[in-house]
């Protein structure tokens, strides 16, 4: 199973050393991404999904440090690479699309120039060569009126258009893996639908694996093949999208499903997960979900469950499914 894996994250531990104490943001994260596969990384605020993405790209800054684990990209461990080597990988091998395109685009630089930077940095192209490649890229990506677009500034575009430009930057060098960090959270529902449709077309055109970081199960259902559910710093359930969403095995996943208001649901009382997300400077012993879990047993309070296989490629970290 691991042979055809494109990216394997094994036992990743990242911690933040602050005055309040050590925040154990990631406590042994395990999941894989196969080639051309879209994997969703789902969880609420503080579960560690963004930190995972940053760890993969080695963009975690002090007071945060990756303290343990392996990240195997094309069989090589990214954690043992130098910063120089990482810079060649970022943007070319693995790239990232962020949540807020306004903050990621330089407001005083022409949009076309920002895309060209990709080619200048990675391929050492000259300015004119880079410009040519950029225009070609923009046409390939169906960005309308490429020549005119090149000379415009970010503030002249709508949120949806800016995201498309960010996508151009992320996909320009045809990376093998793209990480999407909540790219549509700030967009309207209709714009979101357009962008997701657009990305689907791109995924068919170029072969690439992707990781979708989101808290929206709808995006996962529409865009992903497999999904990993995260809670308080580790993956509690991972498997095919249909299996996990329609037949969730972990109590957290089950409750998450129930408390989301649905379109086709009649108005009634929503189910609720009691309590709040744990403080990661002092996380609960054993299974980190046990204080809020209605099915918690004695064992859950002391021993941390590892990932157990309960179906084909369906893993759960829960004592209800193990010995």
């Amino acid at each position, binding site marked *: 199973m691991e042979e055809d894996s494109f990216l394997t994250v094994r036992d990743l531990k990242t911690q933040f050393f602050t005055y309040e104490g050590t925040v154990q943001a990631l406590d042994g994260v395990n999941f894989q991404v196969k080639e051309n596969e879209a994997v969703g990384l789902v969880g609420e605020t503080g579960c560690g999904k963004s930190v995972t993405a940053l760890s993969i790209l080695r963009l975690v800054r002090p007071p945060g440090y990756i303290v343990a684990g392996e990240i195997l990209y094309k069989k090589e461990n990214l954690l043992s690479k130098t910063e120089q080597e990482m810079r060649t990988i970022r943007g070319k091998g693995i790239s990232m699309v962020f949540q807020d395109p306004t903050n990621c685009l330089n407001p005083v630089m022409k949009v076309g120039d920002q895309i060209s930077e990709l080619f200048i940095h990675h391929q050492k192209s000259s300015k004119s060569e880079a410009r040519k490649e950029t225009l070609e890229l923009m046409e390939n990506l169906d960005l309308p009126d490429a020549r005119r677009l090149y000379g415009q500034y970010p503030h002249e575009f709508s949120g949806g258009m800016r995201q498309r430009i960010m996508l151009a930057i992320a996909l320009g060098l045809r990376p093998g893996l793209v990480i999407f960090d909540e790219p549509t959270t700030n967009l309207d529902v209709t714009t979101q639908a357009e962008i997701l449709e657009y990305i689907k077309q791109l995924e068919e055109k170029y072969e690439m694996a992707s990781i979708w970081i989101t808290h929206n199960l709808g995006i996962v*259902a529409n865009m992903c093949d497999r999904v990993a559910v995260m809670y308080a710093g580790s993956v509690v359930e991972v498997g095919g999208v249909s299996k996990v969403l329609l037949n969730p095995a972990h109590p957290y996943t089950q409750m998450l499903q129930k408390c989301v208001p*649905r*379109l086709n649901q009649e108005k009634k009382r929503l189910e609720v997960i009691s309590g709040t997300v744990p403080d990661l400077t002092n996380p609960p012993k054993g299974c980190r979900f046990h204080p809020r879990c209605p099915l918690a047993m004695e064992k859950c309070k002391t021993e941390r469950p590892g990932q157990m296989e309960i179906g084909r490629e369906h893993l759960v970290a829960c004592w209800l499914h193990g010995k």
Partner: protein
Amino acid sequence: MARRIIECRGLKKYFPVKGLFRTTNWIPAVDGVDLYVDKGESLGIAGESGCGKTTLARCVLRLVRVDAGQIYFDGDLIGPKRRELKTLRRRTAIVYQDPMSSLDPRMTIADIVGEPLVVQGLSGGVERDEKVLDMLVKAGLSSDHMFRYPHEFSGGQKQRIAIARALVADPYFVVLDEPTSALDVSVQAQILNLLNDLKTKLNLSYMYISHDLSVARHLCDRIAILYMGKIVELASTKTLFDKPLHPYTQTLFSAILEEDPAVTKKRIVLIGSPPSPINPPPCRFSGRCWRKGSICKEVEPALCEVENGHYVACHFVTEKAP
């Protein structure tokens, strides 16, 4: 007989487009809105960003200057004068979207929640503390929280504090401006349940602003869909979800992602882009609508009652449905 708590007629609010030295144009953020909320009812205002829903909320409470239209609160016409605003301020409240910035970081929770009582001169000292504690408990917090500061709390707890503050002076009518958008899904569920409970317990009327229709469904009795400052459809929640008639409403529904991977939805693709807000065509949606005809570019569609309680503003949906 249901008393109309809030009624608005012909509300308009314009924002100036400044040229170099003077105002060259006006953008109608709210462009002639009629609505009402009955006592004990919850009206939802749904729409996407830029449709004017937040501005509408502020207009209804006269927190910004209204350029045209009348606002009636509990039957009385409320004008911009200070004296007329007194009742409005006394018996209404608002809960904002962002819990971080809606609480003064330098005040204790007790002071924050008790502020309406102090400002209105209703109670002070011990009596104020008692009322504050009572409200905090109703909102799901406890006495330990009274003398702490906002930054010590999570987003969900801050919203509970904001809700307690809104309700402490016994308002009749509360405006909720997307109170759960900034919260996690599990916390959102808690807050929505809380809002529903409090509405029944305290006999409140709500105006609930949201961009998320599924959330609106759980809280609202009637929903109005706003597009570019105008109401394009208004109906009871059940009717709206069963039978959306306006093309824009149908587009919204089709864009919402289904959470069942087995279901593939037919998505409506909008052509064109939104018109310039400065000089829009009579039907604001006509530029992107698939049903448009020549009449849409000349005559503005009025909001008509198509069937009982179901209003639509579209030239092609005027007949009473069978």
